[in-house]
């Protein structure tokens, strides 16, 4: 029994790592740019397709394609910010929400148009590989995704803590007006933050490709979890997104085993609901004034 429990817990934590990776970008964009990017799931879908096609057409392993897709999505994120969200920066919240939802529609339907509704999956060298001691073997791709989530979280943390740009990003996140007065080009910071956020989700897409299939609406399944995680961990908090991801992964795995997979969403939404009642800012949240 305890052996099974350990297995389920490990599996839940690994899945939580993937959720965390997806949520990191979302929370960064929200924390700095103050835009709830509903199209985050579609970014994930696009990066999965990108990784899929790089593998199909040129045989580039998803782990290698990270090197291409991460910068590509940095630029893509900046373009989206510059072209769509920057012009409506001072518009009412509703406009921003609709702009994001419009982006969801466009990206989903473009994917449907170009790549049809088919499910596409790839089998890479690492797909079936297992590591770990006998009896507690775990899939290598999930382990890699987990490690990547941890290292990206740490990397971002140090970047934001120690570099000049990082400090500017934090300042902008804390108080746009004050940051502007201190001579920070906040528009440029928004572009960078959006770029980094998109880059994170781009990496998540590559790491997810050996584990999961891609189809035009794949984003919807992950973005819901990502939103729960981001709010659970505290909007804008990277540590929160990471811990929140692990919690949701664990809850999902444990409830899937002990109760039923059907109810896993119900269960983490109940936890979410209690949290909103007792600690509306989330576990590590600071953004509460708005």
């Amino acid at each position, binding site marked *: 029994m305890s052996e099974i429990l350990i297995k389920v817990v490990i*599996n*839940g934590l690994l*899945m939580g790592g993937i959720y965390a990776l997806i949520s990191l970008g979302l929370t960064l964009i929200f924390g700095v740019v103050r835009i709830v990017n509903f199209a985050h799931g579609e970014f994930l879908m696009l990066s999965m397709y990108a990784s899929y096609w790089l593998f199909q057409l040129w045989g580039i392993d998803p782990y290698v394609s990270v090197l291409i897709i991460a910068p590509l999505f940095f630029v893509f994120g900046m373009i989206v910010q510059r072209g769509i969200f920057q012009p409506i920066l001072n518009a009412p919240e509703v406009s921003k929400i609709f702009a994001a939802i419009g982006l969801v529609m466009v990206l989903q339907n473009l994917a449907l148009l170009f790549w049809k509704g088919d*499910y596409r999956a790839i089998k890479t060298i690492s797909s*079936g590989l297992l590591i770990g001691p006998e009896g507690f073997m775990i899939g290598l791709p999930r382990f890699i995704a987990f490690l990547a989530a941890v290292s990206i979280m740490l990397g971002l943390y140090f970047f934001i803590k120690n570099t000049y740009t990082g400090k500017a990003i934090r300042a902008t996140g804390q108080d746009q007006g004050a940051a502007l007065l201190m001579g920070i080009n906040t528009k440029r910071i928004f572009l960078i933050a959006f770029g980094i956020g998109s880059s994170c989700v781009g990496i998540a897409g590559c790491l997810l490709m050996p584990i999961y299939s891609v189809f035009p609406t794949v984003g919807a399944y992950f973005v819901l979890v990502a939103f729960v995680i981001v709010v659970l961990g505290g909007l804008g908090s990277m540590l929160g997104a990471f811990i929140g991801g692990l919690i949701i992964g664990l809850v*999902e795995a444990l409830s899937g085993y002990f109760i039923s*997979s059907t109810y896993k969403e119900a269960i983490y939404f109940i936890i979410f609901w209690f949290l909103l009642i007792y600690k509306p800012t989330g576990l590590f949240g600071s953004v509460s004034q708005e």
Partner: protein
Amino acid sequence: MKKTLVVLLAIFFVAISLNEGYAVTEIKIGHLLPLSGSAAAPIGQEMLAATQLAIKHVNDNGGIKSLGGAKIKLVTVDTQGDPQIGMTQTERLINVEKVSAIIGAYQSAVTFPSTAVAEKYRIPWVVDLAAKAEITERGFKYVFRPAQCPSSGNADSTIEFLKWIGGKTGKPAKTMAMIYENTDWGQDLAKTLRRRAPEIKVKIILDEPYPPNSGNLMPLAVKIKGVNADVISITGYTVDDISICQLIERMRIEPMAVIWSGAGSLDQTFIPSIGYRGTNYQYTADGWGGYDACVKTPWAKKVWDDFKQMTGKNMSELSVDAYVAARVLAAALEKAKSTDPEAIRDALSQIKIKGDLADFLGFPIEFDEKGQNPYKKYVTKQIYEGKYQLVWPPHLASHDYKPIWPVPKWDERK
């Protein structure tokens, strides 16, 4: 004034009666499919080609001979996958286009309410692919489903296959773990399995629904491994079927066999994304027997080749069902010797088709009092080295392939 009116009326009636006297040259058939606006549209287009091909074959072979060689004219409308549009277009087809019968509408959600409209106007409807059980279960008089089973048909075939293979090999399965996606389709199948498992003395020891497109099915796989059932029945769509199949291999779950309910396990990505080792010996239900089993006669080869030439694609369950539905309606018109919907309905209800068309479908075609073809079944196939080998029912089974039961342990596999 009155006189003129009387004269005009007289002329009108004479004209109508004269018209009746003329031989029919064209029979209008309504046709509904989703051709745009949703993810279903590509399938709609493929089925459209199959139905058009069927009508072309009938017309090129002299049309409906009992009606003096009258040609069938297909009036196709796009439902966009919307039940509301399906219903209003059905009204229009009946009242404006004056069609004699209708074929359609691929999706259950559209077919179910639209057939109710046709029933109200007493216009016969031949269902192509829609599988919802209630479409025929309502006891409508004007709805006929020749080529498709009700949605729980996969489960019926699973039960019948288990009974057959148990008897044949002397190693019947005694316990079953049942895993299914928790929407209508999965629930329907689960209900049927639950009801019919006692018939073959199989005890269901795990009954687990799961939400489609789950990111993490490992906890579920741990449960499956824990109960150690003889047979695992899995009903799901592509993403989850791939995940579960990978988990079964990775966690070395060792049942006598895994039986999939089609859908995901038939997807073109299923075998390539898992590999031969993981997919070998998996059993799956399929709506159509495939080329080797069903395309044997020159007649069927012509259909296959013409479709390939027309669309560049091989025929599948989708296009076969659409083709068969149209040919069944044509056969009914031939038998009815009339374009009157009532006569066509009566002809459909009495029709018995054997020979080329039935061989192509794999089963004889006739209708029970509910309008369902009781002979149509899902076939069972076993995957081996990337190919789907037909193993059941025996009259369609491949001669070169013997089903392997129970399947080899993971250690014994390459």
